[in-house]
Structures are given as structure tokens and as C-alpha cells.
């Protein structure tokens, strides 16, 4: 805000001063603009409006363009000629003609969230932007080999994502492999039409590949060998590859990949500990290994990891730990910095204690849902791993509040802490005062925490960006006010079902100018007045959940439509918003995602009008009852613009009966 006003002042001065801004060199202007953009992107608009020279400078400065709608593209591109990156992720529908009109200076195009274009559009893109280096075609379920063949004409492409391009086959991949030999980063996730033939050709032709994502493809051992042999490959992702089994992995026994650093084999059902033991011999320089939901963890497998002396990250989520498996990690993988054991079975106190006692350099530890661990483990963790920066232990319900206090006392480097659903109390929060670097704190469903504890956090954690207070029923406005005052960097706060909160909380949170995510679901005392403060204060707000806030009505929506231009996603279910509020809300042109279920004041006509006005919608949740009431051709029209409807068929729930019987508006569908 300060920077924005500075820009305002700056522009005012230049209008008055005899020395115009255009005497400044572009380099200097761009430095100014960099600062302005970093502080508040909207200030750029003010800057551009200051003078003709400022306008021109701003036009030349912008490198990234993220238009809200594809029909704005020609105007935007005319205004910003030196754009090199075009992000069309907000444009649900991009016609071929729009892609034909892009400037040749583009280096990166993101079409991952768009539809409506085909091979012809990509052909046009390839023609106009011969120097394109980065192309994201993820989710192009309608794209086939013809599109891939057009991609192949972009000879300088270095990064390409074809995730979920399920119609692409070996033929398309073959074209890409031959055409884009400069590829460094390729994602073929969910390309189920691709087989070993295409992958072998890819490995033969694209020797510069460093990152390759083959998740959920049909890769088997026929092509795994040639993939592993890629001399520059650093990151290989093989999530959910059912064709990868022990046989395939053992066939690599005599091969070496010196370059491979990251291997992700999570969800490979057919891999067992034997296969893992054999492949780690081939990749001596591995830094990160992900075996989540892949195989049982046996001591012998873990011992084979000794050969990977540089291993830093080991992810074993959802794995079944055999006896002594975890202990072996402690003795074999001494170089480990990051360990994830979340949702794993067989993690016991004794083994975990032994492991962490050996892994003194651990920086990140995830023991989410290791339900068997008790205070013993927490004591040894806090004793040995004092340099932890991330500790996630959601749903470790056997840990007592006393042990949780140790975390704050010993692990002062913590930046991320997840204690959701634990026995944490005010004392535990007080202990966290030493963790001044804390940026993310998740303490949802900790029913024992109170305003006093939050006061400690507010006073000692100025860097906090994300706090989750979901269903912390015993906190009140005072606690939230302490957080809002103490944590100016706050970007995201979840206050859902903190039923005691009132508009006072929102008024204080409106001072957190960086806030972009606010969840106040099920806070019945919050009204439009509070929301209007948020709308005026938090101009970057993009996600808002006000479900079951029945006091919020059209007034709140009017404020939102006027001030929250950054809003992308909103949940209005059970609110008191009517057609008027909805219509005003739909004037926010960036709005993409709306959930409008169980609103008594909404009529089919109002709804269809809002849907027609709001051009950027991609996903709308509506009650199924509306489906029959709205004209079909209207729905078709909205769908044709790239919007998806999700029809909800849940019964209307009687609200607030336990909280506030007095203000109960009994409503039924």
C-alpha cells in the first residue's frame, strides 16, 4: 500500500515537474517498476496512468501477461509488445484464432487450464513463435497426435508438458522427440496412449532431457533401460507406473546413471523392496527418493540405501514398515535431511526414537497420522533434531500437551508446524514463542487452545503467513486480533467454525494487506459489516469461504464487487445473499470458482443472469434443483465458454440450532 501510494505521489510529481519522466532511461524506470510490482501489482496501473511516458514505460516493462479472457488478448498484446510469457490459465476457452495472433517475442505459453483450441491453434503458435521455449499443454484431453505433431515444429522448445493429453500416442510423441531435440523438461503424466516404442525413441532423440515425468504411463522395462541411460537426466518421476516391477528394476542392474538425482516411484504397486534394493545400486548420486505407497520397508532394502551416500530426502508415505525397517533408516541413511513417514503403518515409538536419535541433521520430519507414537517419540525428536524447520504431526493423538511443549522449547528453527488434532494447549503455544521464524502454523481441532495462547503467537511470530484455527471453538475475537496485529505478513487464515468470532475479528484482519485466503465458514456472528472491512482492506483477497455465515447478505457482496477485484473463488452456500448480491458479485471479472448451494434468496433468473455476466467462470457448484429450472440453452452457452457445472444434491441442513437458537432462520429446500 505504501509503495502504491508512493507511486501515486511519484506520478503526481512528474505531472507537475518540468522534467518529464521520459528523460529517465528505461533501465531506471524498469527498476522502479520492478519495485512497484513487487509491492502491489495494482500500483502498476496507477503508474501507467500518470503520464504518456509512464504508460509507454509500463508497456515496455511488462514481461508476463495473464489475461482474464481470451478475447482481451489482442488488446493486451498490443499494449504490451515485449511480453515473453503468456499465461492463459485464467482463460477457460482459448480459440485457435487467439493463438494465431500472439507476438513472435513469446518464449513461454501456458495453456494448462484452457480448452477450445486444437492442432490448428498450436500450428499457428508454432508459426508465429518459432522461438518458443516453454509450452504447457496440460489437461489437453482433446489434444491428439495432430497437436503433438504441430508441437514438434517448435524446434527450440525446452520445456513441454503434455500431462493428461490422453489421446497422444507414440506417433505424437515420436514427432515431438524428433522435432524438439532441445527438450530439457518433459511431462507425459497420464499420457496413457504412450508405450515403450515412443519412449525409446524419445530417449534416443532427446538426449538433453533433465526432467522427465512418466507418471501413470504404460512404461515397462522395455524402455526403462533407455530412459535411465539418458546422460543428463536428473529428475525421473514414475508415479503409478504399473508396468514398473522388480523385473524391470533388476534389469537395470548393470547400468549406471550418474546424473539422476531425484527418483519418484510412489504408487508403483508392482515394486517391492527387492526391486528397490536393485535399482539404488544403479543411481549412486541420488538426492531424493520417493517410495510412497510403493513397497514395504524392510531392513535389507533400507540397508541397500547405504550405497546412495548423498541421499537427502526420503519419502515413505503410506508404506508398511517391517520390523527394524525404521531402525535401519537411522543407521543407514545418515545423510538424510528430510524424512516423511506420514500415514505409514508400523511406526512405533522405539523404532522412531532410535531413528531420529541417529538423524541429528534432520530438517523436515513428517509423521502425520502415525497414530501409535506417544510422548516417547516426541521427546527423542525434540532432543536430537533441534535444527528441524518443518514438523508435521497431524493426528498424533497419543501425544500429550506436556510433550508438545518440548517442541517449542527445543526446535527454535521451526518454520512450519502442523499440530492439527492434538492435545495442544496454551502452554504449548507459549513454548512456541522461541520459534520466531514460524511462517506456517496449523493448529486446527486443538480444542484446548485459547486467546491467551494466540496472544503469545501474535507477539513472537511476526513472520507468520499461514495459520489454521479450524474448529478451535474456544477462541474469540481477542485472540484473532492479537494474531492480526502481530502478524502483518499473514496471507492465509482459516477461522472456520470458530463460532464465537464476530465482525471485530475481520476488522482487525483487514489490516493484514497481504491476506489472500480467508475461511470463515460456519461463523454465524460475522456479518456483512465485517466482510466489507475485509473487502476494503485486503485488496489481494482471492479465496473466500463464507459458507454458513447466514448474517452475510447482499451488502457484503456489493463491497466485494467494488473492492476485491482479485477474487477468484468464493463459497456462498447458506448465506443470505440474493440475486442482487450475486449479480454484483458477478461483475468481478476474474471470478472462476463459485459455490452457490442452498441460498434461499436466489432465483433461477438471477442465477442465469449472474452466470451470463461472469465470463471467466470455470467451475460452478449449484443445487440440482436449479438444473430443471434454468433454460438448457443458457447452460449450454455458459458451458461453451469453458465453465463446468457441478450439481449438488445434498439436503438442506438446519443451521446453528446448537449455537444460536434465537437467530435461527429455519429454511428447507
Amino acid at each position, binding site marked *: 500500500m505504501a509503495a502504491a501510494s508512493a507511486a501515486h505521489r511519484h506520478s503526481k510529481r512528474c505531472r507537475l515537474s518540468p522534467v518529464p519522466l521520459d528523460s529517465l532511461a528505461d533501465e531506471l524506470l524498469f527498476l522502479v517498476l520492478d519495485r512497484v510490482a513487487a509491492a502491489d501489482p495494482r500500483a502498476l496501473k496507477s503508474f501507467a496512468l500518470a503520464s504518456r511516458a509512464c504508460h509507454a514505460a509500463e508497456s515496455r516493462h511488462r514481461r508476463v501477461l495473464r489475461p482474464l479472457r481470451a478475447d482481451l488478448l489482442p488488446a493486451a498484446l498490443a499494449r504490451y509488445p515485449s511480453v515473453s510469457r503468456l499465461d492463459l490459465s485464467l482463460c477457460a476457452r482459448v480459440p*485457435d*484464432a487467439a493463438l*494465431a495472433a500472439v507476438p513472435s517475442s513469446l518464449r513461454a505459453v501456458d495453456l494448462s487450464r484452457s480448452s477450445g483450441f*486444437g*492442432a*490448428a*491453434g498450436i*500450428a*499457428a503458435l508454432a*508459426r508465429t513463435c518459432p522461438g518458443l521455449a516453454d509450452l504447457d499443454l496440460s489437461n489437453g484431453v482433446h489434444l*491428439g*497426435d*495432430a*497437436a503433438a*505433431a*504441430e508441437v*514438434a515444429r517448435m524446434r527450440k522448445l525446452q520445456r513441454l508438458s503434455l500431462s493428461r493429453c490422453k489421446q497422444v500416442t*507414440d*506417433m505424437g510423441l*515420436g*514427432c515431438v522427440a*524428433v*522435432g524438439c531435440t532441445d527438450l530439457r523438461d518433459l511431462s507425459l503424466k497420464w499420457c496413457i496412449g504412450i508405450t515403450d*516404442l*515412443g519412449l*525409446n*525413441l524419445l530417449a*534416443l*532423440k532427446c538426449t538433453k532431457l533433465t526432467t522427465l515425468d512418466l507418471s501413470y504411463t504404460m512404461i515397462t522395462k522395455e524402455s526403462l533401460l533407455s530412459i535411465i541411460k539418458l546422460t543428463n537426466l536428473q529428475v525421473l518421476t514414475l508415479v503409478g507406473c504399473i508396468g514398473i516391477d522388480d523385473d524391470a528394476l533388476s534389469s537395470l542392474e548393470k547400468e549406471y546413471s550418474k546424473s539422476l538425482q531425484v527418483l519418484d516411484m510412489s504408487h508403483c504397486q508392482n515394486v517391492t523392496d527387492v526391486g528397490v534394493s536393485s535399482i539404488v545400486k544403479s543411481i549412486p548420486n541420488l538426492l531424493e527418493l520417493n517410495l510412497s505407497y510403493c513397497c514395504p520397508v524392510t531392513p535389507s532394502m533400507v540397508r541397500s540405501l547405504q550405497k546412495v551416500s548423498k541421499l537427502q530426502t526420503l519419502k515413505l508415505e503410506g508404506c508398511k514398515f517391517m520390523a527394524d525397517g525404521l531402525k535401519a533408516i537411522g543407521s543407514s541413511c545418515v545423510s538424510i535431511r528430510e524424512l516423511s513417514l506420514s500415514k505409514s503403518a508400523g511406526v512405533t515409538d522405539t523404532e522412531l526414537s532410535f531413528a531420529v536419535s541417529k538423524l541429528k541433521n534432520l530438517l523436515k520430519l513428517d509423521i502425520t497420522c502415525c497414530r501409535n507414537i506417544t510422548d516417547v517419540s516426541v521427546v527423542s525428536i525434540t532432543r536430537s533434531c533441534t535444527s528441524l524447520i518443518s514438523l508435521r504431526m497431524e493426528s498424533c493423538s497419543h501425544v500429550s500437551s506436556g510433550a508438545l511443549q518440548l517442541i517449542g522449547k527445543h526446535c527454535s528453527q521451526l518454520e512450519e508446524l502442523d499440530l492439527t488434532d492434538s492435545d495442544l494447549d496454551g502452554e504449548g503455544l507459549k513454548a512456541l514463542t522461541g520459534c520466531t521464524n514460524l511462517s506456517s502454523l496449523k493448529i486446527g481441532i486443538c480444542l484446548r487452545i485459547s486467546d491467551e495462547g494466540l496472544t503469545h503467537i501474535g507477539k513472537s511470530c511476526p513472520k507468520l503467513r499461514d495459520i489454521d484455527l479450524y474448529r478451535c471453538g474456544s477462541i474469540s475475537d481477542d485472540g484473532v486480533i492479537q494474531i492480526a496485529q502481530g502478524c502483518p505478513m499473514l496471507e492465509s487464515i482459516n477461522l472456520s467454525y470458530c463460532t464465537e468470532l464476530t465482525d471485530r475479528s475481520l476488522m482487525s484482519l483487514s489490516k493484514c494487506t497481504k491476506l489472500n485466503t480467508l475461511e470463515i465458514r460456519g461463523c454465524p456472528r460475522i456479518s456483512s459489516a465485517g466482510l466489507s472491512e475485509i473487502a476494503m482492506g485486503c485488496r489481494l483477497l482471492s479465496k473466500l469461504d463464507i459458507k454458513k455465515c447466514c448474517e452475510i447478505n447482499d451488502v457484503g457482496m456489493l463491497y466485494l464487487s467494488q473492492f476485491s477485484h482479485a477474487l477468484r473463488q468464493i463459497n456462498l452456500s447458506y448465506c443470505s445473499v440474493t440475486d442482487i448480491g450475486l449479480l454484483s458479485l458477478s461483475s468481478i471479472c476474474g471470478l472462476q470458482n463459485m459455490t452457490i448451494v442452498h441460498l434461499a434468496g436466489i432465483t433461477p433468473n438471477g442465477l442465469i443472469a449472474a452466470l451470463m455476466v461472469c465470463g471467466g467462470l470455470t467451475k460452478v457448484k449449484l443445487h440440482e434443483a436449479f438444473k430443471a429450472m434454468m433454460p438448457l440453452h443458457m447452460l449450454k452457452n455458459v458451458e461453451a465458454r469453458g465453465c463446468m457445472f457441478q450439481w449438488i444434491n445434498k439436503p438442506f441442513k438446519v443451521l446453528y440450532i446448537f449455537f444460536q437458537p434465537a437467530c435461527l432462520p429455519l429454511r428447507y429446500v
Partner: protein
Amino acid sequence: MDRSQNHIHGQSAANFCYQFGSDNPLLGMGIQQQFAPFTSPFGASSSTNIPHMDWNPATMLDNLTFIEDKIRQVKDVIRTMVDNGGQLPCRQGDLTQQQQVVNADLTCLIVQLISTAGSLLPSLKNSSFLSQPPAGHMDTVNHVGSSSSFIPNATTISEENKEDMCSPEDYEELFKGFTDGAMEGGIEIDNVFVEEQDAKDGDEGGDASMDGENLPPGSYELLQLEKDEILAPHTHFCSICGKGFKRDANLRMHMRGHGDEYKSPAALAKPPRDASVEHELVKRYSCPFVGCKRNKLHKNFQPLKTILCVKNHYKRSHCEKSYTCSRCHTKKFSVMADLKTHEKHCGRDKWLCSCGTSFSRKDKLFAHVALFQGHTPALPADETKNSSDQISRVGSHQEPAKFPSSMGSSFMWGTSSSDDRGLDVKGLAGCSEDILSTGNFGSFNFSFGPADGFTGEPSGSSFSVLPPEHFQSAQKKGKN
């Protein structure tokens, strides 16, 4: 008894035909015994044992007496017919039977006459197998009158003869014999020396080793044909008019037009198998193109198995591809059979490369794309067309440079079949035999004229690049 003596004589002649006739199809009827003392004009080694025909008065006398006897027999038969004719007009069946017997006898006589006369004419030597007697026929002649079951016998025998004439395997065997003679002569075909002992060892080593795919060097006889021999369209030439044929059966059919002497069953019959061929050394062939892997000078030399292999290999690898597919107008072939095989499947191939090559299997396409730089899988035309129709401006699709050479051979290898090798083996052998026996190079040269016109190749272009002498000298150097 005259008849009984003739019978014995005929049988012995027939036996000789079957036993020794296979050694040399040039042998005439009933004159084999006399050949043993005579040396072959080409100085063939005794092991090959080819007694070439020459004029011998004693044999001639023998033959003439036989003919005389025969005529007398026929006379007798006809006389009895004349005598009985007036008395029993009702016995028609007997009459026709007798007529047939007379016919057969007369045919036999004609054959005898021709063969006897043929031995006197040097120009007929090469076609003297025409005078080979059908042994069965001899039998029928000698059974005349004594057996009432004559007719059924005769029919079965004629059927056998027919079969013989039709089956190509027999031709092949026959001409193996011919080539053996020619090659041992070492005149036309360059012969790599194989030590006698080695050859014997190979023979004694058993057939199993010889049948194997990879024969060790030295265990086979290596032959190398010259380029013009390989490319010759015809390998059988009429000794009278010089017309060329691919098959000797066709030549025999053609010979009928040159006179009645070629119409006899003996002349038309296929010469019998040569039993001794089986004991010959296994033959392998070398490509005359120096530098080719199939050339014997190559470091990793791999010999070709048959003459047909040589022909197909040479055409595919070292000749211009002059046959273009009439459907796709893209693919070219140097061997007509390859073109026909391709045309059967042309258009059905689903997997296309940007160079225009199409494949029936995806993995073949990908192997091709992997091999050649710049080639890329191409989508079916209609699919890309549909997609690019939506925008008016569609740039011309740049295709990588074509690689016309060496592609055809790389994927055509599989089709080189040795099934019908008999035809060409025989053909080529016949050619060389022709030259050998007649020494008539004129006819050979003459036959090349129409050959060039027929194949449509620029006349002499391939010959002028490297003359045959070049190869020969190179090979000799290699040997030394």
C-alpha cells in the same frame, strides 16, 4: 527270337539311361557303353566323369542295326494286319490296338534316327538331351503283341513323363549337373581353389555340417559370377535362332518350331536327375561388387547361398531401382518380385514416415525413425488436414530430405526367398553351359541386345562403370 533279343537290348539301354544318364544328360540312347574310353574335349577331371559325346563308327553301326531290326518288326506287324484285314472285319478293337503299336514303334524309330544323326552334328550337341529316350517307351515297344494290358501301361507312363516335364525341382537338379560341368571347366566362372583334401574332409564330415547356415570358410566351393551374367535376363538360348529363355522348359517348347525332331517325347522330356550331384561339394556364391559384404574380399564376408540370391542381392544392392510402384509412385524396386510384393500391400500400410516410406508395423516405423536423422513419424494425411483446415493460413509442411539410397535394401531383406531359386539357378547354369558346349559366343552376345531393351536400363551403363575384367583382376589379386 528276334523279339526277345530286342527286348533285352532295349532293357539294358533303359537301365543305362537311368543309371548313368543322370550323370550326364547329354547321353544319347543306347550308346552309353562306348563312351567310357573317350576323354572329354574339355579335359574334365576324372572325378566328375563326364563322357562327352563324339562320333564313333562302331556305335553308329550298332544303332543302325537296331533301327533295321525295328523296321523289320514294324513291317511284320503291318503285314499281319494286311493279311487279317479281309478275313475278320468285325474285330475293330484289335485293329486299333495294332495301329497304336505301330505308331509307337514308328515314334521309337524316329527318335533313334534323330539321336544317331544328332551325334554327327556338332551344333546339336548342346540340345542332344532331346534325344534322350523315354525308357518307359522302350518297354512298351518291346512288349508289343505279347501283352494285352499294353494300353493302360502306356497311359500311366505318359503321365509320368508329363509330371517330369512340369516339375521344376528336376530341372534344377539337371542344371546343377550342367553347371558343375561348366564350372569345373573354370572358363566362365571364376573358381576359388579349394584343396582336394579339404573338399574330401568336407564330404566325409557328413551332410549335417553342410546343411548348416554358417559354413566355415573352405568347407564349400566359392563361386563368383560376373555382373553381366547376373543381370542377363535369359539364361537359355536357342542354338538355332538365338532366342533367349528364362526356363529351359520354355526353350524346349520353342525348339518344337524348329523341326519335327524336337517334337518327340524324348526331346520334350525333362532330363532326369543327376544322382552324383548330391555328393558334390556345397556351393556358395560371392557378389562381384568389391566392397560389398557379400564380396569374398570383404573382411566379414558372408557368402550367398544360391544363384538366385546372388541375382537378387546384386539387383537390390548395386543396381538402380527402376520399378516404381504404380499406386504410391514413391517406392522403387530393382527386383520385379519385390515390386509385386509391395503392390499387394501398398496403401494398406498404416504407419508413415515423413520421407514417404510406409510400414505395416509401428515398431518398424519407429526403428526407421530412430535410424535416420530428421525423419519423423507422419500422421495420416486426412487427420492433419482436418485440423489445419480451421485456420486458413497453413504453412507448407517442411519435410526432411529424402534418403533414397540403401533404404530399400534395408527393409527388403526379408523377402529374399530361396524357394524359387531353381528357376534362375538353372537359367544361369544353362547359359554358361551353352557357351561351353558350343563355344558360340556370338549367340550369347546377341542375346544381350534385347535384354537391355527389355529391362529398360540404359544400355551398357552399368557395364561401362566397371568392366568385368576389373572384378576379375581384383579377385585374382585377392586370391594371390
